[in-house]
């Protein structure tokens, strides 16, 4: 059972290894002089105005929170979907109620304008 997961571990290591080798080659082979102008952050030829870790729109934050809620619902749905054959009509209707509650929440978000972007 658990040895089925061994190829995954090896694949993760090989994947990271491939990237690592490429990075190493790039740092070894890449050539060119470095000066202050080249190393400064790109800003259309100007000196950087202020720190670039600036304030950002709160809507990005809102999207992240909504994502967590929905992703959790999906995580709940997976075991149910696998076992659907054995659950029959009762199982389906139970999840239908759960999904309906989700839909009510979704309509509330929609009406509140949480999904608007402009």
């Amino acid at each position, binding site marked *: 059972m658990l*040895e*089925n*997961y*061994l*190829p*995954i571990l*090896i*694949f*993760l290591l*090989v*994947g*990271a290894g*491939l*990237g*690592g080798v*490429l*990075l190493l*080659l*790039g740092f070894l*082979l*890449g*050539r*060119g002089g470095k000066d*202050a102008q*080249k*190393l*400064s*952050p*790109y*800003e259309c030829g100007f000196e*950087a105005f202020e720190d*670039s*870790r*600036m304030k*950002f*729109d709160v*809507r*990005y934050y809102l*999207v*992240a929170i*909504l*994502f967590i809620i*929905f*992703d959790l619902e*999906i995580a709940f749905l*997976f075991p149910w*979907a*696998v076992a*659907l054959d054995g659950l029959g009509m009762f199982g*389906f209707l139970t*999840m*239908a109620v759960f*999904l309906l509650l*989700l*839909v009510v929440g*979704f309509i509330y978000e*929609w009406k509140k304008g949480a*999904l608007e*972007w*402009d």
Partner: protein
Amino acid sequence: MAIWESIPEQFQMVLIILAQVLAVTIVVTLCVAYLTLAERKVIGYIQNRIGPNRVGPKGLLQPFADVIKLLLKEVVVPSSANRFLFVIAPLLSITPALAAWAVMPLFPGFTLANINAGLLYVLALTSLGVYGVILAGWASNSKYAFLGAMRSAAQIVAYEIAMGFALVAVVMASGSLNLGEIVEAQAGGAGLLNWFWLPLFPLFVVYFISGVAETNRAPFDVAEGESEIVAGFHVEYSGVTFAIFFLAEYANMILISALTAVFFLGGWLSPFQGLFGEDSVLGAPGLFWFALKTAFFLFCFLWFRATFPRYRYDQIMRLGWKIFIPVTIVWIFVLGAMIAFQVPPWFA
């Protein structure tokens, strides 16, 4: 052979797996290389040009010339960047894009890691890709990179929900999280009509379009948006660090195409299964069919890029939240009813 037999049995197993993993990795990397060439050729012909044709016969060695050029370029790490995160971010992009292939059912009876939670593993790894983008944008300490990373993260996250719901439906239809079993659940006498694309048609469309959005490809490429924020999250990356992001993006395209083929077009199954029988050349399942279906979706990626203008960001968010999520939820109900009433030929 004497040396081989002197190795303890556990190590033999590890070495065999390592060889298989390396083989898959090399094939995927070569596919990435030639996908970049195919993209330039296909878009070239769509725009009435002939594309690259100088390096090697008909330009066939172009990808290698590109790799060598990028390897020889200077790697610039901006002075204000967080050095560690800046270098680690490309690795975080490429590793999941490759490692997801571990659970891919390549041909009948062969999967590197035949695990029961294959679909969950795929979902987890495709979600990890966003960390590379966010870290790259944040570590660069550049305004364009930061904006690109924010946009990209919100977009990937929004489309992942629609993708997740589509996958829930695939699991409902097949009753398994194992990718090989999902393919086998689509086998049947009706050939290509037996595959899940037909009963799950809206979700098939939603899944593939979400895949295009997840990989930040045109027309959803506002994260790069050359005309507004230069190159987005990888504006500060040069040389090989840029090459790795490039590699990861194309590896992700191949991954999404292969997954769409597995979930909705029956992976290695033949479309003529019932027509010619499993013993004939055209009716037999095999790697060929899987590769053909994957290539079809890859061509769609290139076709989209050559055809559609870029979406505006608010339109992208509206499509993800207000169209795809309602469609998927409704279709889960429809599918539940189809399964409950055992609609033939899929759920009989």
